[in-house]
């Protein structure tokens, strides 16, 4: 179960007296169990960027957290104390991030988040050494609310699992949605049968449905929804429509609008090269998680090229400058080190045998987050 891979970018530094300072990166991510698809995509995207950078002074140590906070904490301790890493990254889940990130940054390590963006780390709990390269958790839900307005929805039925990220999701949607709510449900985390909720949607008189059900929960909901005969339009964040799970949902997802900060058809040279090289190397289409891993690694590479990691102030400034080519086009950090970015509305389409997404418009432009004002760095 527990495997360790020591990946050296393009080989050990052999040249005697090489002046380049070595940067050691600890990646803690989910590589086994039910949520493994996300961690694998982040890892593969990250390692692809490190490989393409051609740098031989970045060493990456990868460990599997099994989606368990206690294991993530142990791994972080080990990486900081015995592996002596300079930078940590990789965590997928917000509850794991909350367990690891504050302790790591307090010990003077840098943390670059390729996924989790809990509100606690964006507002009062922000830290000068913590950078989120993906999004603040609420962002995609806020964009879904904004999209529902522009699509003319006036009465939404909203549901999410009963845990912190689920509450953030509904809060985010309600922050931007201007219509009224036909119903609001918290489902059980890990619930797989949504017949009861679908019956309530049918009886509620709603004109649209918003749901945040990541991973397998979303697959179950969409299949059951499609079979129920309720045909209200559905809006959701990209987490139930990423490349890894769309094939498992199949035709049930066709035409559904979802919001994402990335898609494979964002038109810029970096993104086109990323999509084709990822596909060539791994034999599958990249997901948004893979793009986040790729961007995180490129941010790191840009900072390593500009500053010595031993000089924390200079390295931090180099990270804050975000001087790298993102797959999302323009990329910059807000005052709380979270991205300021455009979030798109995408529609699920079928290309040949493959289900994938196509951008249909911008839901929010140059969007920051609601917590930046609380951050005192």
């Amino acid at each position: 179960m527990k495997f360790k891979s020591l990946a050296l970018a393009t080989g050990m530094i052999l040249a005697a007296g090489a002046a380049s300072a070595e940067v050691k990166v600890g990646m803690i991510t989910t590589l086994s169990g039910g949520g493994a698809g996300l961690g694998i995509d982040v890892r593969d995207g990250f390692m692809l960027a490190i490989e393409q950078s051609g740098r031989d002074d970045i060493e990456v140590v990868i460990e599997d957290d099994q989606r368990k906070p206690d294991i993530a904490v142990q791994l972080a301790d080990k990486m900081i104390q015995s592996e002596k890493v300079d930078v940590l990254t990789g965590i997928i889940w917000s509850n794991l991030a909350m367990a690891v990130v504050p302790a790591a940054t307090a010990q003077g390590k840098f943390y670059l988040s390729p996924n989790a963006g809990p509100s606690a780390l964006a507002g009062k709990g922000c830290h000068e050494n913590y950078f989120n390269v993906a999004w603040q958790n609420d962002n995609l839900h806020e964009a879904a609310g904004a999209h529902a307005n522009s699509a003319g929805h006036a009465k939404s039925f909203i549901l999410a699992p009963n845990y912190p990220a689920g509450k953030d999701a509904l809060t985010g949607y309600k922050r931007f949605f201007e219509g009224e709510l036909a119903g609001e449900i918290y489902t059980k985390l890990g619930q797989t049968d949504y017949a009861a909720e679908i019956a309530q949607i049918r009886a509620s008189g709603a004109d649209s449905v918003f749901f945040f059900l990541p991973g397998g929960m979303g697959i179950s909901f969409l299949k059951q929804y499609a079979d129920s005969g309720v045909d209200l339009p559905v809006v959701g964040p990209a987490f139930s429509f990423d490349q890894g799970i769309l094939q498992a949902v199949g035709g049930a997802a066709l035409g559904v609008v979802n919001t994402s900060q990335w898609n494979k058809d964002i038109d810029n040279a970096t993104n086109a090269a990323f999509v084709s090289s990822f596909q060539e190397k791994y034999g599958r289409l990249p997901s948004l998680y893979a793009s986040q891993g790729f961007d995180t690694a490129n941010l790191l590479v840009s900072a390593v090229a500009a500053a010595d990691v031993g000089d924390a102030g200079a390295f931090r400034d180099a990270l804050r400058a975000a001087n790298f080519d993102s797959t999302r086009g323009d990329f910059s950090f807000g005052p709380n080190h979270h991205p300021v970015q455009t979030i798109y509305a995408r529609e699920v389409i079928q290309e040949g045998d493959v289900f994938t997404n196509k951008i249909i418009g911008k839901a929010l432009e140059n969007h920051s987050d609601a917590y930046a004002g609380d951050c005192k760095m």
Partner: protein
Amino acid sequence: MSHILIAEQVLNGLQFGVMLFLMAAGLTLIFGVMGLINLAHGSLYMIGAFFAAVVAGWTGSFLLALIAAMAAAAAAGALVELVVIRRLYDKDHLDQVLATFALILIFSEGTRWVFGSFPLFLDIPDALSGPVTLPGGIQYPLYRLVLIGTGLGVALGLGLLITRTRIGIQIRAGENDREMIAALGVDISRLYTLVFALGAALAGLAGALVGAIQSVQVGMGEPVLILAFVVIVIGGIGSIRGALVGAILVGLTDTLGGVFLPELFKLFMEPSAATSVGSSLASMAIYILMAVVLIWRPTGLFGARA
């Protein structure tokens, strides 16, 4: 709240309960006959779903997929019984729990190696997809009605097997006194393998049937396993009838609790707080049910012994 909605939710609860029964029946048989706590039962459910998805992908036939799911789960069950479980009958429950927990990890990672980390696709056959209109104007998915029918059919068949056949007599005798039936010339180890494979096949069938409307992914069996344990504790360990009654009780409590508790709290609380309190209480409902049943009947509803 309309009568249609209530009727629909009762059907949902029934369907959930009947699927739980397929899991719980195997678990209770194995516990009753062999005295074995099998945590790996959820893995057999997962194996059923994965084989159904693969065979449905190859052949396009849902019926063949169901047969493959049962065959694969039964084969995996028999293999596990012969290689691992057989050594655990004389050990205490802690050893059994440890060994079968290890089996969960082995099956999960093995499945991930063979089938990959991403969920598989398994869909309802076209003939069974879409809703039908029931008397009273209830729109209800046909596939869920088929699940209810299948589950009740299996329950009936299993009841007849246990009460009316020679194998059934041996199984019941094995529950009561395993030394005695061994002394009477019944090949007890063959019987154990058979019961284990039967329980595994039922779990595989449940995995395949439910997989068509849910996500076929690694780790899908463990949440169901926990509920199945609740069911057999409520129903009484070793009792098929108890498993059926317990499963339907749990299914109805879980579904109706999730719907009506938040509504109930809305009568005297503000809506968002009511939703949050009601949802939290609803997730506890089946455990409260279990506690109440155990206080009233410590051996479960149909349990013969503690």
